[in-house]
């Protein structure tokens, strides 16, 4: 005998639909989420390591630069930093005239 001759019977049949996932679904989801988190945190860790190396290299380069400026110019003034301690403004003019 058919269960659905009328729309009401069809709707009744659909409303009794009982679909469920296998037991332990929540645990499987939480495991997957933990796995996702650990993958994401290891990616973050790798990025942090690279960032730290780049940052430390930059700081080291700046220290070396300052040290070399101090050795060659003997001070940390702005002129020393730009190599203008013994600069004579007339030199380029004389040099260009000679040329």
């Amino acid at each position, binding site marked *: 005998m*058919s269960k659905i001759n009328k729309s009401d019977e069809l709707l009744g049949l659909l409303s009794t639909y009982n679909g469920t996932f296998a037991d332990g679904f929540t645990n499987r989801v939480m495991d997957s989420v933990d796995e996702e988190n650990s993958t994401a945190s290891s990616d973050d860790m790798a990025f942090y390591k690279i960032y730290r190396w780049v940052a430390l290299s930059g700081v080291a380069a700046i220290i070396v630069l300052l040290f070399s400026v101090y050795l060659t110019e003997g001070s940390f003034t702005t002129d020393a930093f730009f190599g203008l301690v013994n600069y004579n403004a007339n030199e380029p003019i004389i040099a260009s005239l000679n040329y």
Partner: protein
Amino acid sequence: MSAFETIVMRYERLVAKIIIPMVGNKYDADDIGQETFIRFYKSMKQFKGDSQLGTYLARIAINLSLNEIKKRSNHRMLSSTDFKNIEITDTSTEKSTDNTELVNNALSAMDVKFRSIIILRHIQGFSTKETADILNLPLGTVLSRLSRGQDKLKKIITKLEKI
């Protein structure tokens, strides 16, 4: 117990009642169900509460199910959308009287555009407007597909019961 775990437990049945009849395979459905919650977990910060959580999860679940069906169709494994070519699964050949199996078999024989609307509106109990929002369809389209889908489903179930 974390808040997210509580959400999973609370909405597990809602998601199951969308995905299982959509894909018609409990094993695939389980994977898609997990993926649904993982997607939600990743996008939780973007969830501003504009829609209800159930509607939001339903949208993710239906989209992932549609992706799975599309993937299957690319592998020429999609169940027939033609009523005349209904393929009956093993469970139905056993003439199971279980309503859930009957509905699963009938829905798997339907075109996905009718199937998704029947599932959201009649199995899940969303309003017509919520169904339209979830599927991003105009209300009129949902109403007309709902009516045609019901007629098709009645015919399919009647035919399945005769087998």
